[in-house]
């Protein structure tokens, strides 16, 4: 009964952040769907892996992320099997092209999208046991503010918000940040502007969003909100072509404009949130 999200019950269910800052767990999320979360998750993972980090990508969109398609994997064991007790977590962690690991949800996971206490506990247990084994865990979440997304984000130490420069995407990103601030007391969000058509526009967009957040959301000076511009990724035909070829862009054409941008994102993350690998 208590797993939904009416305004007065959601505080009981969605743990206040930090629930337990779980190592370096980065949630890749967005307000609107289809803006490039899965593309960013997979390729950023490859970029970080090539810099020596042990990286795991988790399909926190419960099988809807299509990570298996992007990575051209045909998993025999998935998170679903771990949930149903058919397999051990170790067996569901697969090597992905690009030198990182991936935990795919499997199609049956949608069944678990009604987040009962048991499902939450199981998720928490799984993510907690992943954290010590990897330097970075990237969670590819669904779009919007479904309770699965909010729950996944609540477990992350950092939020990477992906948005495109279109007004609908920015409005939804802004609205989602509002919820993360209001409901999870999140104070820092990092913005990735994907599919940008003009260089340098990401910083301007970030400033704009920051101004509106300051004015309408962070009205309490004790609790400022910091929107940090993590970087821009240009529109690049290679992105689509890589998907059509079922190859990972970072692995095959790392020098294309989008590839260079992702490599830059990895360096920026290393400077700011992830310690350099030993």
């Amino acid at each position, binding site marked *: 009964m208590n797993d939904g999200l009416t305004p007065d019950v959601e505080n009981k269910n969605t743990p206040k952040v930090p629930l337990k800052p779980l190592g370096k767990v980065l949630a890749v999320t967005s307000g609107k769907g289809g803006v490039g979360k899965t593309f960013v998750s997979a390729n950023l993972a490859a970029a970080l892996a090539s810099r020596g980090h042990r990286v795991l990508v988790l399909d926190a969109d419960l099988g809807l992320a299509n990570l298996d398609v992007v990575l051209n994997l045909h998993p025999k064991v998935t998170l679903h099997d771990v949930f149903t007790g058919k397999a051990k977590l170790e067996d569901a962690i697969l090597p992905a092209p690009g030198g990182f690991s991936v935990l795919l949800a499997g199609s049956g996971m949608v069944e678990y999208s009604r987040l009962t206490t048991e499902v939450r506990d199981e998720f928490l247990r799984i993510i907690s046991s992943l954290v010590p084994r990897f330097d970075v865990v990237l969670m590819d979440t669904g779009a919007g503010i479904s*309770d699965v997304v909010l729950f996944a984000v609540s477990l992350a130490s950092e939020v990477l918000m992906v948005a495109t420069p279109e007004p609908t995407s920015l409005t939804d990103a802004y609205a989602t940040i509002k919820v993360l601030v209001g409901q999870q007391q999140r104070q820092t969000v990092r913005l990735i502007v994907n599919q940008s058509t003009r260089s340098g526009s990401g910083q301007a967009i970030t400033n*704009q969003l920051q101004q509106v957040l300051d004015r309408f959301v962070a009205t309490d000076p004790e609790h400022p909100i910091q929107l940090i511009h993590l970087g821009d990724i240009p529109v690049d035909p290679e992105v689509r072509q890589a998907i059509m070829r079922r190859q990972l862009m970072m692995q095959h054409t790392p020098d294309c404009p989008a590839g260079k941008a992702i490599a830059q994102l990895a360096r920026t993350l290393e400077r700011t949130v992830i310690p350099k690998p030993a």
Partner: protein
Amino acid sequence: MTRFPDTSLVNLHNLKLDDACALLQHDAKNIEQEAGESDAAYLQRLIDGLCELSLRDPLTGLNNRRHFRSVLERSIDIVARSGESVLLLLLDIDRFKSINDGHGHLAGDQVLREIASCLAHCLRPMDTVARYGGEEFAIILPNCRPAFGLAVAERIRKSVAALSIPVSPLLSLKVTISIGGAYAPEWVRSTTDLWIERADKQLYRAKSEGRDQVCLDQPRELSVSAEEKGLLFGHLLMDESGIQENVPRDATSDEQSNAPKRENA
């Protein structure tokens, strides 16, 4: 298969269909096997009739609670991924007990039937209306934008209040209903129980604030006001018109390039 070497898959006489036929006959269904109707087709017709019965409320002919629950389950799954607005209304006849007590149960039944048919007429084909309990009805309105919810619910309330329900040759009754409503949380996978609970709370509010009224749960706050949008996109509009491109972005011209921006906001 080999046990029924007959052309028919089963022997109708072994199936003891009497109970099923009695149920269907009671519902004014033709239960005789028609000339030329194969055993399988006849059986299918009986099964279809039983399925229909199991989803309908016998008194009012509306969907019953079971059918309502399954439609609600489906709606909540659609909303979780599509973000479509779906409104659930719970309706309760005001002071129904006094109708039963004062005019008898037959009068009460007549009131239920009249209101049911009034509700069925108020709605679009895509909507689902059900008898939810004794004097309670439920309506699921898919694709109902939050801006219209109150108007739709008010229209239903007024239609019922306008009825004059004949309960005997000499007597017609006026009845009112209270309505509570809640939207499915958009993009959110929640549960039907919680959704009903939220609508029920509003129904309780409508009752306790004097009956014959509508109370709706406000949809979840994910709204961005016009003012916020103006601030967010004033800058983009300028960007597109190319003003910023022509102005060098160094410190000296900052004043200049910012001035129209403030005006926009």
